[in-house]
């Protein structure tokens, strides 16, 4: 069985951990520059406020609604994310982070366990340890686990954990799920499906396999197999793009013990992430690196950890992202561990068209150079083949330690940003 754990309204919940006064109040988080709504609490969704609504329209249309708005606080969100993942790793042998607020759990070999009770307890543990409410879906495939997690989130009766174990449960859940809400079926495919009379996930799963392959190729067929309970999608090795997050992670064929080896792997994953950012013309605020030992080798010491670095001015250049990823790696690397998997995640992704430069650290000349280098890399690699030209690994010293300018800059750039409760001493006060 596979589990998918998903934080409930992640950005809003991060803010609420440190603001108990907002427990039942409508909360939104705004995109960079306070442009539009990117996260809504349950109360806000219930008011019918759509995602991506521009902030000024929110203020105009809902003037006395008591909605509390926050600017994006990527440092807080990345820290809370790594805490949630750390608690998961303490409790589950194989955790694959899929986005800033989701992770897949490999539950094979847990057949003797009452998964429902175990899952409820896991969700309680995460919430008690971090303050983050999470929902868990457990099913025979990843796609079904995603469906199950939506049920766990929507209906309080599941007590945060929905296990889809029987055929009857699977059929019922798929009948209640619109095709467009299935992992891997986008809006475009959903429109085509509708043309063929396929509306629910169940309609799709009932179609003939050959028909699905003919119309929607191998990816569609995989989704079809997954919906029919056959686990064929492996997120390990898949570059995933989800919820303003890009993850590149791989298992190594053997195991690695040397920092220098891990460095070059991390550098490559980071370079891939930065390429993806440039392809979609976006930039990121946060780079996270993670490393894992081989949990199948119980005879070896086990260790897994993640760390992140944030940019004052968001970026997509290979040089900066590789540098940040390796700086994060350096802080978590431990000698004497045989590493089996590593990965890089970029998050806090915003449009590259309107980048807000940090007033104090932004160096236009250097920035232009780095952009030129990245553009040249893309041109050469586009022509000559991927990874034809790559960077030597850059040494990077994190410059974010200057508390004062960070604070001031944040104040002018993101007017409604909450304090960095978890990462700045004195930001979290108790009377």
């Amino acid at each position, binding site marked *: 069985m596979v589990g998918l754990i998903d934080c409930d309204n992640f950005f809003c919940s991060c803010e609420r951990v440190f603001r108990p006064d907002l427990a039942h109040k409508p909360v939104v988080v705004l995109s960079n520059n306070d442009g539009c709504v990117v996260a809504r609490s349950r109360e806000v969704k219930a008011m019918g406020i759509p995602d991506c609504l521009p902030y000024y329209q929110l203020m105009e249309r809902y003037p006395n609604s008591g909605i509390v708005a926050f600017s994006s606080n990527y440092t807080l969100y990345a820290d809370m994310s790594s805490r949630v993942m750390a608690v998961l790793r303490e409790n589950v042998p194989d955790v694959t982070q899929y986005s800033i607020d989701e992770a897949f759990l490999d539950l094979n070999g847990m057949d003797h366990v009452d998964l429902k009770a175990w899952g409820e307890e896991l969700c309680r543990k995460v919430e008690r*340890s*971090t*303050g983050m409410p999470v929902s868990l879906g457990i099913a025979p495939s990843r796609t079904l686990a995603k469906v199950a997690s939506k049920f766990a989130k929507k209906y309080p009766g599941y007590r945060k954990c929905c296990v889809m174990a029987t055929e009857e449960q699977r059929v019922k859940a798929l009948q209640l799920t619109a095709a467009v809400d299935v992992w891997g079926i986008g809006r475009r495919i959903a429109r085509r499906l509708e043309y063929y009379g396929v509306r629910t996930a169940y309609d799709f799963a009932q179609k003939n396999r050959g028909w699905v392959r003919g119309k929607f190729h191998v990816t569609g067929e995989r989704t079809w197999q997954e919906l029919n309970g056959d686990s064929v999608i492996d997120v390990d090795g898949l570059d995933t793009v989800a919820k303003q997050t890009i993850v590149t992670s791989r298992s190594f064929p053997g195991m690695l013990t040397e920092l220098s080896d891990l460095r070059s792997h991390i550098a490559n994953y980071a370079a891939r992430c930065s390429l993806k950012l440039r392809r979609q013309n976006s930039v990121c605020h946060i780079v996270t690196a993670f490393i894992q030992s081989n949990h199948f080798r119980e005879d070896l010491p086990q260790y897994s950890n993640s760390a992140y670095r944030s940019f004052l001015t968001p970026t997509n250049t290979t040089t900066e992202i590789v540098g940040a990823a390796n700086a994060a790696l350096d*802080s978590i690397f431990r000698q004497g561990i045989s590493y089996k998997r590593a990965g890089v995640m970029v998050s806090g992704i915003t449009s590259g068209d309107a980048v807000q430069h940090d007033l104090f650290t932004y160096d236009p000349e250097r920035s232009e150079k780095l952009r030129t280098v990245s553009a040249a890399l893309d041109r050469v690699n586009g022509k000559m083949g991927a990874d034809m030209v790559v960077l030597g690994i850059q040494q990077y010293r994190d410059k974010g330690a200057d508390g004062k300018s960070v604070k001031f800059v944040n104040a002018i750039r993101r007017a409604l940003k909450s304090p960095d*409760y978890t990462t700045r*001493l004195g930001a*979290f006060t*108790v009377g």
Partner: protein
Amino acid sequence: MPLRIFKPEFSTELRLVYADGGVRAGFPSPAQDYVSATIDLNKDLIEHPASTFYARVVGDSMEEEGITEGDILVVDKSVEPHHGDLAVCCLDGEFTLKRLRFTSADRLYLMPSNRRYRPIEVTTENEFRVWGVVLYTIKSNRRRRPGTERW
């Protein structure tokens, strides 16, 4: 009782060298001969990094047990709160730092350490939860220089 000196090493891991040589008259040599182990407070005091948060004290409600404004609290959200624990509590949407007192009659009181404040009884009328248990209080024994953040 022999004194022990903990000499800081300002590496990123915040590791402190544990010098076993006892205290000498004068000041200890920077090249201690008897360095036998290191102390990393992160490792030795923080059992659950994922659920440990640092908070700063505001106000004077715990003053009589020496917890005063500006002290740093090491708060662990994952540990089970017990009678007598110092805890960061959420009471009706507000944070409050108090000691927990469970009575035999199944009642819960939040106890201040300041005669000017009264104990608060938590009833079913209240929205209450223990946010985290304070495992350590870090206190500076110097006063801040007026008008600055520095010691």
